[in-house]
């Protein structure tokens, strides 16, 4: 049994799986159910001035029959009185002293507002704070959430204000609705953040109803953009985590968020630099019990790899993430088709023929349809292996290069040295 405990900037939890600040952490009842199910921590639904919500709030995107491939919401921060939330946090912390409870906060960008709320939530015994600079809808129109999270100066200043009075670790939650997330991550660190978390949701419109021509969802015939989450956003989130993890100026722990649906996703985020992960959409799709396999699967993975503590995998893949200019131009892989395993759906052939490099030949050998890669024309793009529905039918294999490795950057510097 591997040690699944994590310590994220001083916040300790029995495992790396936290519920993100969202509908699942709206109340003490829910958070306590989650802890009973096995979740290691919960970031409470964002506290602030109580707001009003609309009816019809969520929408999801199905892809080829797979429900909730992506999820869109226009729900705002908590609509319950602050005192009620604080009382429930107190009770929950009392029942689950070893679980992490983090208060998500969002107030107007004013020093006194931040001081006031930080003091109030720390008084009930939270383990940490998460400043919500990411919520992309509704609150942003009032200058909060993503609106302040998109301005590096505001991120830095508000973090600083929170840190002025905070006694528990401060995590800054960043919005992905920005060209370069490392800019705001650096600003948070300059403001004194103990950790950053990412990503919040991505601006989105889930769809348009083809019969009524209304947006999906719509509120009485009108729609507004929401925030996108779920499995579809995972690659976007993973890149942002990785970009921050390899940035020397973002030298604080990262809490990874975005499309994490199982232990495999969680392990990937941790290898790419996240100290722990936060989950929302997967829990909304399946309920709190999904954490059981997250814990079990991660534990079995670590045991199988002979790794004693989950903290030991944090960031192990970061140094493998680089710039395109640092990639070896002479590295070569090619596709190899195993006709014994191949079921002859010919998807690789048509994908290559129509949309890639025309190097997979269809032919017949003693009456049997066969496929073969013309290696000299294969660029190693992986498309055939990606569309292949059968495990083991197409392998991408390395071919020894006759020339020494050379990156684009090395090449350019050699060329410019000649020019000199």
């Amino acid at each position, binding site marked *: 049994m591997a040690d699944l405990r994590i310590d994220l900037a001083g916040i300790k939890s029995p495992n790396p799986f936290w519920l993100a600040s969202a509908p699942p952490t709206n109340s003490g009842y829910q958070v306590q159910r989650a802890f009973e199910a096995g979740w290691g921590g919960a970031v409470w639904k964002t506290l602030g001035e109580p707001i009003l919500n609309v009816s019809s709030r969520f929408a999801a995107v199905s892809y080829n029959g797979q429900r909730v491939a992506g999820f869109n919401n226009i729900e705002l921060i908590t609509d319950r009185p602050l005192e009620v939330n604080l009382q429930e946090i107190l009770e929950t912390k009392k029942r689950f002293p070893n679980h992490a409870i983090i208060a998500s906060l969002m107030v107007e960008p004013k020093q006194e507002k931040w001081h006031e709320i930080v003091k109030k939530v720390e008084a009930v015994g939270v383990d940490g704070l998460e400043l919500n600079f990411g919520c992309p809808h509704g609150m942003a129109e009032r200058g909060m959430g993503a609106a302040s999270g998109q301005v590096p100066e505001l991120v830095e200043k508000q973090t600083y204000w929170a840190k002025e009075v905070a006694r528990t670790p401060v995590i800054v939650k960043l919005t992905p609705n920005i060209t370069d997330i490392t800019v705001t991550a650096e600003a948070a660190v300059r403001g004194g953040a103990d950790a950053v978390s990412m990503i919040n949701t991505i601006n989105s419109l889930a769809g348009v109803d083809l019969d009524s021509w209304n947006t999906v969802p719509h509120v009485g015939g009108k729609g507004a953009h929401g925030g996108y989450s779920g499995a579809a956003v995972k690659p976007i989130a993973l890149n942002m985590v990785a970009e921050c993890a390899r940035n020397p100026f973002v030298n604080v722990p990262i809490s990874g968020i975005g499309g994490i649906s199982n232990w495999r996703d969680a392990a990937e985020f941790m290898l790419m630099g996240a100290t722990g992960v936060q989950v929302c959409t997967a829990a909304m799709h399946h309920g709190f019990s999904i954490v059981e396999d997250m814990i079990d699967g991660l534990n079995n993975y670590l045991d199988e790899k002979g790794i004693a503590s989950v903290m030991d995998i944090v960031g192990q893949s970061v140094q493998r993430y680089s710039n395109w200019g640092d990639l070896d131009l002479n590295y070569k892989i090619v596709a190899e088709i195993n006709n014994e395993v191949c079921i002859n759906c*010919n998807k690789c052939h048509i994908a290559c023929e129509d949309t890639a490099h025309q190097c997979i030949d269809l032919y017949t050998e003693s009456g049997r349809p066969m496929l073969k890669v013309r290696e000299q024309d294969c660029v190693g793009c992986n498309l055939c292996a990606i569309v292949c529905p059968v495990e083991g039918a197409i392998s991408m294999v390395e071919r020894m290069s006759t020339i020494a490795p050379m990156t684009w950057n090395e090449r350019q510097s050699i060329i410019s040295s000649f020019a000199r």
Partner: protein
Amino acid sequence: MTSQLEQNFMEMTSKMTKNEAQEEANRCLYCYDAPCITACPTSIPIPSFIKKIASSNMLGSAKTIMEANPIGASCARVCPTEELCEGACVLNSSTKPIKIGHLQRYATDWAMESDVELFKKGQPNGQKVAIVGAGPAGLSAARELSRFGYSVTIFEGEAKAGGLGNYGIVSFRLPNDVVDWEVAQVVKLGVDIKTNTTVGVDISAEEILAQYDSVILAVGMGAVPNLGIKGEELAGVHDAIEFVKHTKMGALTEDLVGKRVAVIGAGNTAIDGATCAVRLGAEQVDILYRRTEKEMTAYQFEYEFAKQDGVGFKWLTAPQQIIGDDAGKVVGLECVKMKLGEAGADGRQRPEVIKGSEFVIEVDAVIKAIGQTRFVSLIESFGLQHTNGVVDIDETTMQTSNDKVFACGDVVFGNGQGEAMVVTAAQQGKDAAYIIHERLRKPSEIA
């Protein structure tokens, strides 16, 4: 009781729900150069119609099917899909094949329920075509010809069009309303179907040959031949084709409730006769075959189906005579045991009588299912050459010995020529139509 019998003859397989259909449709790999298309005698672009179900383009899906196969709703139910499209599905090699037949039914059921117009009649081209027989082949030819602008008349001896679909295929596999819908699609294109019109009785072959530019002979096959044994005239001896036909037309009778039935033969028609007898309430139904399980011509799935229905099989058993009582009713069947001897001219081992092995089984009814006879006199009335009642054709042009007469469907099946599947008949009907049209478009080249 009657309502129970009616229940027995209701379509067995239920329609896919929207969820099932979408899930299954999404499982289709959308192969390139898909083997399921090649395996379909009518070459339905199967991956296309399936993807259209997945994208909720139901009109497009139904049209894709019906375009390639004018009786696509029937074929969705009666095709031996394990032997055709589903048997060719590449997923047989990895997981499990796509339920193509069920999806085809889902799409065509949508078309039936939606009452949409799938196809339009072509601009009249002044040419007249007569089709003899309104079964799968005749209807398919008519549908295509009408779309090309031909004036088409079908002569059908039965009271309803549909042929085998309406008279020969058991109701629990193919309900009549499906066939009626397919017929209606053809009628909507302006095809004139003259039912209750037997060629040779109500109109002569000569008149047809004189009045039409081209003629398509699609009359199928006839009744089951005689066994050539004593007692065939007894009450309780049935022709399997007629027997099934009775269950399709009008009220079901209770004559067989609790009775013992012997079916002679082991082809698909024998299975139909046997399973109909079970569903009519017979206590015991046995199929008697003079060869063994290995040589039986019924499809494997039909065989399995019959066994599930409780039909018994007596292999290497041949009937010697049917025994009747004083009232002329069947009471027994004398049989003899057989053994397989040397291979005959067709390569199959010939069954030989085991002398002295005669035995009698008590039965109340005997159903004959040993093949079908040919409409020889009709074929000859058109002056067409034939071999043992199978019309001789040039397989590439479907032309008979009279170059304005084409033949397709079961009337050309036999003697090693063609396949006796509904879907094959449909394709041959299409082919005949295309050839007639091609000939019109390029008269000089053909002449």
